[in-house]
């Protein structure tokens, strides 16, 4: 809570439909966001039980500087991931952070399971567990509309919801946040589904007097100017992250056809420019961010003979053009958007589902599975086949699709083909085959995401390959992002929020904190996450890397398996200092 020395936590017990509010003074030093959430997760997880056991918690937390400074827009969700069996950590923008702040809660902890499908309604003066029986089985888009009509507070409201994939406990089911944003990775959708929790609606309108307006507003304006009047953020608004397609393609770092290739012949047809030219109709922002990096693309679909058309709009970003585009050999922007639409409706992680389907396609090619298993002809470039397959995953159509729904690692345990199941510690890969940086970063990153420590950036900027330096840089960045994710900034603005700016912002809202304390905070949070991973049985040294990483050359050149494992060992050694 701004201007208070405690973290206000809302505990929701779905078993007994009981609510408890706690002022946690002991958590104040963790600032907010992932700092607070990881402590709450540590307190509430049951390591001896299954990730989807009703006793397991879901923790949401907003940051220590949320919403009142530009681009500090995110909420963190922490849970036990059903995909990896260990630390689940995911970030989303939209309106959730602003509305939680205005409803008056820094963190929400949800345990138990409702007796019937429900949705949680949070507002400043009321918290209710409401009937969602008729919503169960309805896609995420429609549910958003239905809840909108039942709840007040339009304009100051956030609605997060799961689709059928979450209801059916697909391990990488996602949560849709305000139509265009997501808690995408690691399966939060399944955890909500396992609790019969279809959605959460948050409305906020409380009084929040500013204590030191002059100082606060000066800092606000300085940051706002940096964000809007300089070029730092301009690319994210212009054509957005899809501009990555062409440089990665030219440099041989673009994962294509299940990483059989590192470039795609049709890259220019699905580049950022191509999408902007053919499909872009709108740009949007998360509340509190003047950049507007959300790019909405539209395509026309002929749904029946007799000139029957509809227009579909979906958000697109680089990662989706990789996972549902180049990785699957899809050649046109329209087809990619169409696949994205299916993924959105059913509520799956776009990155994981694409990479899983890449494995499945090659598994079928190589005869590890047959058409009897896949039901549809999975082939690179066949968009319709993939759309049907995605629905089959969401509905757990048969044994094969149940396994696909548990991730490429699990599926390859049963059918083989582990060498080309492109996962890092069971989380499917991201869109960069740039060198040792992304491999090390993804494997040792606390949540196995490319955003944990930006390994792909280091691959680009490193002049000469230096093992010690790479390990050191990744370690430093991982800790730094732990601190940034307790604010919780959108990482697109990490160049704006240098230490000086962070200190000025926090001090102007009455939070006295020093630069040394920020460093210590990053370390404390990282240490907490490593403890949680250990509690959940994660062993960094036991992780195996898919051999395909070393068969296909990267942006950096051909990679050597022994070197990669050596780097992991060096990194594990380095983290011992955190104990």
């Amino acid at each position: 809570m701004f201007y208070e020395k405690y973290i206000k936590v809302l505990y929701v017990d779905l078993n007994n439909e009981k609510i408890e509010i706690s002022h946690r003074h002991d958590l104040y030093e963790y600032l907010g966001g992932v700092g607070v959430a990881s402590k709450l997760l540590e307190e509430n997880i049951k390591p001896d039980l299954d990730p989807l056991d009703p006793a397991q918690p879901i923790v949401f937390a907003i940051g220590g500087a949320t919403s009142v400074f530009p681009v500090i827009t995110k909420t963190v969700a922490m849970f036990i991931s059903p995909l990896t069996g260990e630390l689940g950590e995911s970030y989303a923008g939209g309106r959730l952070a602003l509305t939680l702040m205005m409803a008056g809660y820094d963190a929400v902890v949800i345990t138990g399971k409702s007796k019937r499908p429900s949705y949680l309604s949070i507002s400043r003066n009321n918290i209710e567990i409401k009937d969602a029986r008729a919503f169960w089985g309805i896609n995420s888009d429609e549910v958003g509309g239905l809840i909108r009509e039942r709840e007040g507070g339009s304009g100051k409201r956030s609605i997060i919801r799961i689709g059928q994939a979450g209801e059916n406990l697909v391990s990488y089911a996602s949560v849709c946040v305000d139509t265009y944003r997501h808690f995408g990775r690691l399966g939060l959708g399944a955890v909500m589904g396992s609790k019969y929790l279809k959605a959460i609606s948050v409305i906020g309108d409380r009084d929040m007097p500013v204590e030191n307006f002059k100082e606060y507003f000066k800092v606000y304006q300085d940051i706002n100017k940096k964000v809007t009047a300089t070029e730092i953020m301009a690319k994210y608004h212009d054509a957005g992250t899809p501009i990555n397609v062409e440089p990665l393609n030219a440099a041989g770092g673009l994962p294509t056809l299940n990483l059989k290739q590192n470039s795609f012949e049709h890259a220019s047809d699905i580049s950022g420019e191509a999408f902007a030219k053919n499909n872009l109709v709108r740009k949007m922002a998360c509340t509190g961010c003047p950049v507007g990096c959300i790019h909405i693309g539209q395509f026309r679909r002929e749904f029946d003979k007799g000139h029957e058309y509809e227009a579909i709009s979906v958000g697109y970003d680089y990662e989706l053009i990789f996972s549902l585009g180049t990785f699957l050999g899809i050649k046109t922007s329209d087809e990619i958007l169409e696949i994205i639409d299916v993924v959105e409706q059913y509520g799956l992680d776009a990155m994981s589902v694409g990479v899983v389907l890449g494995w499945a396609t090659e598994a079928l090619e190589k005869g590890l599975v047959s058409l009897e298993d896949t039901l549809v002809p999975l082939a690179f470039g066949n968009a319709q086949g993939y759309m049907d397959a995605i629905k089959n995953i969401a509905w757990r159509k048969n044994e094969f699709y149940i396994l696909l729904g548990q991730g490429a690692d699990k599926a390859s345990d049963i059918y083989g083909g582990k060498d080309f199941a492109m996962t890092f510690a069971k989380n499917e890969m991201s869109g960069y085959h740039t060198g040792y940086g992304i491999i090390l970063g993804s494997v040792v990153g606390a949540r196995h995401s490319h955003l944990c420590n930006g390994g792909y950036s280091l691959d680009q900027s490193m002049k000469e390959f230096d093992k010690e330096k790479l390990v050191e840089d990744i370690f430093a960045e991982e800790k730094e992002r732990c601190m940034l994710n307790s604010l919780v900034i959108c990482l697109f603005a990490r160049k704006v929020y240098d230490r000086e700016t962070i200190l000025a912002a926090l001090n102007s809202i009455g939070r006295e904190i020093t630069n040394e304390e920020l460093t210590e905070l990053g370390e404390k949070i990282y240490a907490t996450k490593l403890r949680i991973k250990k509690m959940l049985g994660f062993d960094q040294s036991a992780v195996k890397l898919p051999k395909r990483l070393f068969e296909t050359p990267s942006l950096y050149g051909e990679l050597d398996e022994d070197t990669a494992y050596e780097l992991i060992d060096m990194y594990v050694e380095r983290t011992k200092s955190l104990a």
Partner: protein
Amino acid sequence: MTIKIQIELIGWLKRYSPEEDPVMIELMFPETVDKIFIKAGIPREEIGIIKAGENRLSLNHLISEDIYMVAYPTILGG
């Protein structure tokens, strides 16, 4: 005898030369890629990969003959 350089700018980098595409630079003496891009008015921090045909060029690479280069922007974190 001048050295004729042509630089094709991709994507975001196009804004640094809206009129001329490809950018034409003439050198009297061999220069590094780094210096050539400074001459062309392209900020170093915006440059990602530079290619000449199939080869990647580093910023230190010395250019002593006519060449056609393609410059790509840095990869955004996304």
